[in-house]
């Protein structure tokens, strides 16, 4: 099983896609996630994702401190830029 990545809002444009998957050998912490993104995506995307305006949900639950997360097989991580709803 892979780890699913979801890019919301304008992050979808930066990533060029709405979803992706990664299959790391071992679970990744936040630093590892950013490195994986850096290998496949632009630095603009990595900077945006790492910025304080982008929130993270893991398996559908909002994360208070994204620097503390670890994701592995079967997890879903969503990158949530500021909302602009209604």
């Amino acid at each position, binding site marked *: 099983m892979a780890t699913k990545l979801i890019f919301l809002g304008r992050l979808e444009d930066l990533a060029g896609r709405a979803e992706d998957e990664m299959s790391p050998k071992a679970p990744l912490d936040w630093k590892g996630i950013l490195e994986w993104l850096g290998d496949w995506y632009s630095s603009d995307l990595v900077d945006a994702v790492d910025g304080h305006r982008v929130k993270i949900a893991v398996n559908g639950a909002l994360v208070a401190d994204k620097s503390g997360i670890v994701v592995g097989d079967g997890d879903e991580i969503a990158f949530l830029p500021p909302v602009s*709803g209604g």
Partner: protein
Amino acid sequence: MADVRLLTEPFDPAAELSAFAAAYPEAGGIASFLGQVRAGGGVEALELRHYAPLTLPAMRALGVQVQGRWDLDGLLVIHRSGVMNPGDPIVLVAAASRHRRDAFAAADFAMDHLKSESWFWKREQANGQWRWVEPREQDFEDIARWQ
């Protein structure tokens, strides 16, 4: 109990309001807000994306919060997701209460929070090009009124 719905297909606000009003004959008053895709201004279409695990649960939590804050007989919150055309309904909020002030405040509060805190991302199509819409400063000012 609030009636909170996230819809991916068009809805009929008049029919929804009519059913809502009929469901609360003891209310006396119903305040509502209907948001629709603006015609003019060159916008050809509007898309709202949501993130299913967060969006509807947060809308339901907002419904609980609104019902706890005001004395309501009923609360209706309907929000579209997906691609919409000018004139299409986006959001409908209605609050039924014995007290006019409660109904107005509840609908107003719910709209402010849907606009600035709900998990929706909006993009607009103009001249055939899609462009993501950034959050508006006005929305943050609106929500700050309630704190």
